[in-house]
């Protein structure tokens, strides 16, 4: 691993290849179809350019983690938290009859819970999420200011 604090040693960020991004966008849409199926509500749509922007920003943060946290990988839980953050911030999902902030907060909540369960499964740990905690999260995702780091630390502390 190379260490430096000289700006000339750092390369310029380039975007991830389009094929990978398209594949991830396709998967997000598949997730959205599953969400529609499970909630029994049809008519959800996703804004493609916003999805592209979200994926790009997560990839940038992956590099940021590596450069500024001594080679640390972003990790699944942080990646899931970032996905939630950008959904709440950029609101890529919409529905003709439901306010955008409600749709996006609930999809972010579902992704957050799925990320927790997936990561807990990897570590053979459990998720500490009560009904009240889910309601609190839903409210916070709608109306409170949550930074990327706040969502990351929240996620980390809900696994035991």
């Amino acid at each position, binding site marked *: 691993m190379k260490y430096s604090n000289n700006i000339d040693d750092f390369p310029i960020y*380039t975007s991830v*290849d389009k094929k990978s991004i398209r594949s*991830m966008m396709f998967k997000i849409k598949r997730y959205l179809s599953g969400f529609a199926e499970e909630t029994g509500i049809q008519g959800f749509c996703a804004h493609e350019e916003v999805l592209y922007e979200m994926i790009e920003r997560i990839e940038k943060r992956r590099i940021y983690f590596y450069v500024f946290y001594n080679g640390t990988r972003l990790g699944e839980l942080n990646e899931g938290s970032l996905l939630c953050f950008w959904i709440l911030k950029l609101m890529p999902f919409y529905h003709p009859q439901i306010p955008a902030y409600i749709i996006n907060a609930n999809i972010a909540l579902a992704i957050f819970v799925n*990320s927790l369960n*997936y990561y807990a499964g990897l570590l053979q740990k459990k998720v500490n999420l009560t009904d009240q905690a889910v309601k609190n999260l839903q409210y916070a995702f709608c109306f409170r200011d949550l930074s990327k780091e706040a969502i990351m630390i929240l996620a980390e502390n809900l696994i035991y």
Partner: protein
Amino acid sequence: MNEREATNYSDGMEDFSEEAYAAFLERKKSLQITNSRKRPDGVPLIDELVKEQKRFCATPEGKHFMNFIATSLKESISSPAAK
């Protein structure tokens, strides 16, 4: 706003000229052409989330959770006829 502030504001707006915007679009286009870096990690998380969604929704906890989400969404549907 006094005259000086107004002048500064006007000066600032020059950054958003058509030429500057065209240059911005051109720069963005060139960035899109060079996006050839492969993702460093293996499977993207979203692949796993699609699988996890199916697995979780098949469990009693998952059904309970999705029912909570569905109820919230249905309550917010603006048209009563659509409920």
